[in-house]
């Protein structure tokens, strides 16, 4: 037995005596698997009367198909008018397009395209593309804030970062990265590395033009290509850069004070 609701509605009306299509009346040699009936013997759907109550709460009055729109409820819903000239809706739509057509010559709002690359919109400060390493001062090697603590490497979701820490002549870790590679074919620019970095050493760049003619090596950015000065960081995101500077300065002062205290204690 087929329940009424299981049949596909055709053109909006339920056709009561129409059996749904089943595998048997198709002359295909079973290439397309098809199932329409979901009945299993012994399981029947609850009575239609019961089902109709579901979902349509009593609190909302049943108004389908008969009620006229209540005024002011929703101004632009097309009313159930007895007759409207066919074509009037299309004409209305054509007025809209005409407004945009001619409006685009006068109104900046109707012509929002920017002529890239001659015109470029400055991305907002928070905007991000891929990470870069911040260094203080002028020397990218000496001023690098990164201490090769591997936090970002561990937290990077697609594992795009690989770090090898440098060791001094005694074989002790030198708190500096020897290798800091980001595979930008893997990096998804999620900024989790910048978020978890305890030293504010890695930040998100605005730079977007990564295209190159070379397929593989140019996709792995090394330490030299990733290092950018703090001044650059100020140009792309001065709010964050200033905050970071203040934070680092406070840290430095605290450490200085602690060192002096220790020296005084000695």
């Amino acid at each position: 037995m087929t329940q009424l609701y299981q049949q596909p509605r055709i053109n909006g009306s339920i056709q009561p005596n129409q059996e749904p299509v089943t595998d048997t009346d198709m002359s295909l040699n079973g290439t397309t698997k098809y199932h329409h009936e979901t009945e299993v013997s012994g399981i029947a759907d609850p009575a239609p009367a019961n089902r109709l109550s579901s979902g349509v709460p009593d609190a909302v009055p049943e108004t389908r198909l008969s009620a006229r729109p209540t005024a002011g409820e929703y101004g632009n819903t097309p009313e159930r008018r007895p007759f409207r000239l066919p074509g009037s809706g299309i004409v209305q739509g054509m007025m809209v397009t005409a407004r945009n057509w001619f409006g685009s010559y006068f109104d900046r709002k109707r012509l929002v395209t920017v002529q890239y690359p001659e015109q470029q919109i400055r991305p907002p400060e928070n905007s991000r593309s891929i990470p870069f390493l911040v260094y203080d001062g002028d020397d990218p090697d000496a001023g690098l804030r990164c201490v090769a603590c591997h936090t970002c490497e561990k937290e990077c979701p697609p594992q795009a970062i690989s770090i090898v820490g440098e060791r001094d002549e005694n074989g002790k870790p030198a708190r500096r990265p020897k290798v800091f590679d980001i595979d930008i074919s893997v990096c998804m620019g999620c900024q989790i590395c910048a978020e978890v970095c305890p030293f504010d050493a890695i930040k998100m760049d605005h730079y977007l033009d990564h295209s190159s003619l070379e397929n593989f090596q140019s996709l792995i950015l090394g330490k030299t290509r990733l290092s950018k000065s703090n001044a650059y960081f100020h140009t792309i995101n001065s709010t964050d850069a200033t905050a970071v500077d203040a934070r680092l300065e406070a840290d430095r002062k605290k450490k200085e004070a602690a060192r002096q205290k220790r020296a005084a204690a000695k």
Partner: protein
Amino acid sequence: MQLEASHINSHATAPPGRLPPAVAIAIAGIVLTGAGALLNLKAPGILLPAAWEALQNPSEAPLLLKGGLLDYLEQGWISSPFFLELASIQITIATLLSLFGILFALTSLVERKVLARIQNRYGPNRVGPCGLFQPIADGIKMLIKEDIVPRGADKTVHLLAPVVMVVPALLVLAILPYGPGLTPVELSVGILFFFALGATTEVAVFMAGWGSNNKYSLLGAMRAIAQMISYELPLILTALAVVMMAGSLSPVAIVEAQGGYSMGFIPDWFALTPWGIAAFILFFIAALAEANRSPFDLPEGESELVAGHLTEYSGFKYATFFLAEYIGLFAICGLAVTLFLGGWHAPLPVLEFIPGYIWFFLKLFALVLAAIWIRGTVPRIRTDHLMYFAWKFMIPAGFVIILAAAAWHYSGAGWLGWIIATPIVLLPYLILARGLSNRYATSGRTYRFSEG
């Protein structure tokens, strides 16, 4: 932070001027042609006066120029009258082809620009000034593309389809009256010729669909056949009313019947009569369907059939189809101008100093713009609705229009005609529209809201 004009850094004031190779080629061509003409010393003596005369008398200009050219050929090159006749035909053909070729290029650009403007974009503006050389770039791109014929395709049919498509589209251009005395072939049964040849397009589309050996193509071709045959009937019916009124199947006679102004300023175009306006609207809708223009572009309905009968075409063959479709659109819009919009006649008596052929092309272009505008607005209609619309609305309405035209004629084509013919058109329209609206449109809905 927000997109403001002040935040847009203008690195350069305008796109940098680049001289595309196409420009260089064009300039070289002009220089070489000029030099070649000058080598024959007789040329300036004959051609320049003709050109001067043409400038002084712009409405006769095409004929004068052609006469001058023929004179030049007669004196310098050809003596046999047979070949002279042939040359005369060749000149006409070459003019028409280049004219419509330019119009095709221009329209393909204008279409993209207008669609872009409708959609709040710029459209092509990189190739040449204002993107004017975009059609050339497109053409070069099309020509150098690989021509792919699918394995299992009927190769002959696949190859012939674009040819069969483009030839009738070009042939029908011959009977259109572009201006007074500017009809390439003055056929007394021009309208009949137009529809007879126009019907050939269906064969071409079906050849493309069948020959491609692709399911999408086949479905597209099936749609095309059904659509074109259905819409040819209202097209012919509405044209029939005009033929009845003009009493002739000759396009020139039809245009001449629309000359003159009533009350001194209202042109006597058929589109400005109660039956004519209805016939014109029906004709234009059917013309859109015949030319496969949106919203009747079902044969290549890209949302379901990828590109319909064009799916398996690339390169030059595709370009040919493209050309044929545009030429077909021009031809049918040209016929609409001839039948309803007074052909070469100016809309106002004071504007008659402008040559007729300019009026013709202006009207033609206006219709093409309207088609583009419609394309920018409406979604595609569905197959069964399309057939329903043709057979249950357009064809009965076409018959009614014939009746109304007769009533208009016998009531003297004046105010009495308006009183009698208007209800004859309007009442059946309302009844038919009611049938349409009951079936499809205008059933507004109310929505309930739950406050939760």
